[in-house]
């Protein structure tokens, strides 16, 4: 990646203050997404995928606080931006598709109006033309009979339809970066494939960078060129998709791949990832938050994590799985 990244997140740390202690939800999270590139953030629930997205969008819960780091979008540090700057950027440059479209959409406003709102606010569309353009957007995301659907309220539409509306809203102002937080969770596979195709197609047309958050490793592999694996608020591995699947180096990544049902021939063959995420409120969190679940733990794991940087295959582990040099794909350097 020699091109200037569309978004680069550096050393992002987020804490949540709760009644039962401070939750260190993100710790030193770094990754970058290039222009027109699609990357995936994967990990179990609670690994900090969504918090990363919320922090970048500047929509963290009030209890949450960014304690360190930068998120550079063009020349603007999103984490240091004023609310007014953010309001300009969000919707226009930076858009997000939320996990649950039914709760993310305004329940008491017809969907056509909600799209028109964004068009008027961020898309330089005159108010009078907005309803017409909103209908066009609905058609672009593959909703049949868009003129009638524009008048519908979210509760009158199916989950897949609502998700299409979300996409239409997110893409209304042709943003340069789209964050899709589990956009197809709860949709069925045919709809999932169509929605993901739609996002990919529009992303390509608009030259948009996409950060795609999912817990489905197979889906992430199919849709992104690079995968960032998160565990308990850490980035544990960050590698080009092909390479990650062929040669997972971090033990956690390897376990996740082994737990994905697609790869197995029978249920008994599937391995579960032992243990659970550590309690992030603990004061004595080990430097490697995976070490307590890790089958490859060594003495070195008590030291601070290796600071791996660069743009190749990044692993935050003292004892990664060995690289099998023999069957290493030759094109991985490209």
């Amino acid at each position, binding site marked *: 990646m020699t091109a200037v990244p569309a978004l680069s997140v550096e050393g992002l740390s987020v804490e949540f203050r709760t009644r039962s202690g401070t939750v260190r939800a993100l710790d030193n999270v770094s990754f970058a997404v290039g222009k027109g590139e699609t990357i995936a953030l994967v990990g179990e629930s609670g690994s900090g995928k969504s918090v990363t997205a919320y922090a970048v969008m500047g929509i963290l819960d009030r209890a949450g606080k960014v304690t360190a780091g930068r998120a550079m979008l063009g020349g603007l540090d999103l984490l240091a931006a004023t609310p007014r700057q953010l309001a300009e950027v969000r919707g226009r440059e930076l858009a997000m598709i939320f996990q649950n479209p039914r709760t993310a959409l305004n329940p008491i406003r017809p969907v056509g109006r909600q799209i028109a709102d964004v068009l008027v606010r961020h898309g330089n569309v005159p108010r009078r033309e907005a309803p017409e353009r909103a209908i066009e957007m609905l058609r672009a995301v593959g909703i049949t009979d868009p003129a009638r659907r524009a008048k519908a309220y979210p509760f009158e539409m199916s989950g897949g339809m609502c998700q299409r509306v979300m996409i239409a809203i997110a893409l209304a102002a042709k943003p340069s970066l789209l964050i899709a937080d589990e956009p197809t969770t709860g949709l069925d*596979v045919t709809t*999932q*494939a169509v929605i993901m195709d739609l996002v990919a197609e529009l992303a390509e047309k608009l030259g948009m960078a996409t950060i795609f958050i999912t817990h489905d*490793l197979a889906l992430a592999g199919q849709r992104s060129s690079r995968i960032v694996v998160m565990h308990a608020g850490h980035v544990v591995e960050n590698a080009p998709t092909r390479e990650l699947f062929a040669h997972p180096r971090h033990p956690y990544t390897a376990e996740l791949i082994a737990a*994905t049902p697609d790869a197995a021939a029978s249920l008994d063959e599937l391995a*579960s990832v032992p243990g659970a995420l550590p309690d992030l409120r603990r004061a004595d969190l080990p430097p490697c938050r995976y070490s307590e679940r890790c089958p490859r733990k060594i003495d070195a794991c008590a030291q601070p994590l290796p600071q791996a940087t660069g743009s190749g295959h990044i692993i935050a582990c003292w004892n990664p799985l060995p690289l099998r040099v023999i069957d290493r794909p030759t094109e991985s350097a490209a």
Partner: protein
Amino acid sequence: MTTLLDVADVSKLFAVGGGPGLWSRLRRRLAGGPQTLPKVHAVDDVSFVIDQGETVGLVGESGCGKSTLVRALTRLVDVSDGSVKLGSRELSLKPSRVFARDRDRARIQMVFQDAGESINPRFTAFDAIADPLRRLRKLRGAALKARVETVAAQCGLPLQLLSRFPHQLSGGQRARVGIARAVAVEPDLLVLDEPTAALDVSVQVVILQLLQRLKKECGMSYLFVSHDLSVVRLLCDRVLVMYLGKIVESGPAAEVFEHPLHPYTQALVAAVPRLHDNGAGRLRLTGEPRSPIDPDPNVCRFYGRCPRSTDACKTAMPALRAFGDRRVACHFAEEFLPQPLQPKTAV
């Protein structure tokens, strides 16, 4: 094998476009409107059997009638037509409200999709598991406590968690409570509505393995509703593919996913993300499903979305035809038949 559940020609129609009440009917009549309202054919003439000890998968997109079918089988709603037989007992004759207190109620139980939402938030895990035992088994006191603890242990739920409320449990633990409560009354048939949809892969594996173990231990049959085909492939013996209220394909799970015969199944299988495949050049469904409201009985339900869509498809509804132990509702199924008539070699 003996047949456990025999579903024959079950249909479920819902009237749409007007109030169902007497007053709105009267008003319609005075206004000279149509006497009968248009109807959504949610489940249309569905027949299948589930054998003792069998796991049957039910797949299809949202809105295809999976949930309505499941609700009809578990007698949460009444069927419009057809029969649902459990063993030798005909279940569809009693209204669902009466069936709720029937002695056979315990024989079909259901695990709902999101245990976090389907368990009463004001019930502790103990109460959630005890509720069906109190109602259907009339257990009280020590016997109840003993049974709840046995089932919890069987489902891998630590006993100290029984006093917790759903929000104090993790997703995996909640799923276990949902399963424990359904298994508690020792049903013959367990209907699982996407039991792992809300779970992480790492937890999903554990729950699936738990289900497989429970099935062996308790000798239950499963009807497993899911849209995750890779899970269905692993867990199910047989699979039913539904499209717009009709079963379009059925057969042994491995074969159906290996060589799907119906174009819809082919699209479905192609849409499953795979770890080691970038998915280029796959079959995609375009367009919208046909309207389920009073559909033309002579047009294939898949017409318009099917890549094939010939004239024959809109003049005659393809019937479900048998090919060996598989059934397909497509005029052109023969063309996709791999080598089923030849002796099978190891794949």
